[in-house]
């Protein structure tokens, strides 16, 4: 395993006889924004859960930020994650929530306060930092979740459906945040169904179906190789979900 921020080698996860992720191999470099695309059940969330050490692979190997899969605690120190459909404690304030998570990464009380304040400003929640999360809109919660994923200044950030259920304004805000994270040289892995965002944000894409990589490359390459003009057309044609 070399200097890649992410390196997956024949990564496989089986549930009984079903292969949720099937011999996945890919790499990313610092500052890359990798889009994971695929229909529901394609294996996007399982891939993220494998790479973030929540699940153990059935076979294959991977490393994150140069740390091998055999050291899951060390990997968790170097990653930030916004899980799909994550829950938030409604009685906690946004600031308290970020402070708590910063403390879980070993930060002192003082440093955790600074981190919470800085991240609330970054995601545009400074004014609501002192109010209960239970009063937040879905978009605000997603932004808080992204802020939480950044408390440890991670080398790789995983965002699982960050725009899920957001209105257009919320989607634009999340897109701007992803660009901001990537500009620092952080690798971003984003699983999404919003293909327009992928074309705009991602430096590379993996299109998955039934756990396997159908195609990998830059959005422009994938579109060109499919002989179409838009990524959405390429996606629909490759996954066989084109309704026409």
């Amino acid at each position: 395993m070399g200097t890649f921020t992410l390196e997956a080698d024949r990564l496989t996860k089986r549930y009984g006889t079903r292969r949720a992720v099937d011999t996945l191999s890919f790499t990313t470099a610092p500052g890359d924004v990798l889009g994971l695309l695929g229909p529901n059940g394609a294996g996007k969330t399982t891939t993220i859960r494998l790479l973030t050490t929540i699940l153990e692979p059935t076979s294959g190997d991977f490393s994150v930020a140069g740390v091998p899969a055999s050291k899951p605690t060390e990997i968790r120190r170097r990653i930030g994650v916004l899980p799909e459909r994550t829950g938030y404690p409604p009685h906690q304030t946004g600031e308290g929530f970020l402070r708590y998570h910063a403390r879980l990464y070993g930060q002192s009380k003082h440093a955790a306060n600074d981190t919470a304040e800085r991240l609330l400003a970054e995601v545009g929640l400074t004014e609501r930092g002192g109010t209960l999360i239970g009063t937040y809109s879905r978009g605000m919660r997603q932004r808080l979740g992204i802020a939480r994923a950044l408390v440890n200044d991670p080398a790789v950030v995983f965002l699982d459906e960050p725009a899920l259920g957001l209105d257009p304004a919320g989607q634009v805000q999340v897109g701007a945040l992803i660009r901001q994270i990537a500009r620092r040289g952080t690798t971003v892995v984003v699983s999404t169904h919003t293909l327009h965002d992928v074309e705009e944000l991602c430096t590379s894409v993996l299109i998955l179906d039934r756990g396997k990589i159908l195609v990998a490359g830059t959005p422009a390459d994938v579109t060109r190789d499919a002989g179409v003009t838009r990524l959405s057309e390429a996606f629909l044609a490759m996954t066989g979900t084109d309704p026409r």
Partner: protein
Amino acid sequence: MSTRVVAAQEGRDLWIAGRALLLVFAFSVLLSAITYFTAIDQTLNFLEQKEAVDFTLQIAVGVGVLVTLVVSADGISGERERGTLEALLLTPVARRSIMLGKLVAALSVWLAAFLVTIPYIWVLGNGVSLVTKALVLGLAVGTLVATGLALFGLLVSARCASNKASLAISFFVLLALFAPTQLPGGLPRGWFFDVLQRVNPVASGLQYTHLILVTGHSWTRDLSYLISPVVLILVAGALALGASTRLVRLFPGVNSV
């Protein structure tokens, strides 16, 4: 340090969100009613004063432990269902620290229940110099039983896919353990009953307090009754902390794959 951070946050969640306050309030209402009726029985000479203290202490320990068990049984399965467990698992905090933090928070509820018990025991035991003995016994035996059952609750919570199942199993187990302590005293009890009582950590712990408070035995004479609460702590603790990496995890279908 991470255990302390988790315990502090779990404690805030329990006490500020109101669940623990509500449970301790309900506990104090129940204890008030029990103390009132016990005091009446005592006044009418149906119950000796030391029996009144023992009875109230048994109820206080039994219900205090139940409240602790309810809190611990919600510890992991509840977070799983609310979707907040994954974020915790994604941090570098060891699974063992998560378990320990939750255990400490659950035991804070037992300690609060015990503090609530103090004035009731003081009222009932005043005059027979039984108060200090009863309180020290209650704290020692109650903490032993509460720790063992809180660990058991965490184990059940970690293994159950649904929070309802975790709470129901824990509640019925405690009920089954507590029920024998409330059997009428006049029933014939042979060696089999004695064995059952000794393997039951709740019944044996409460029998120990009964023998000291009511029968007047010394503290060291019946220590063998504390074997089962200690064994429960050791076994449940070894399982909960030793296998924490496999226990504290997401389940397929519960905010998971």
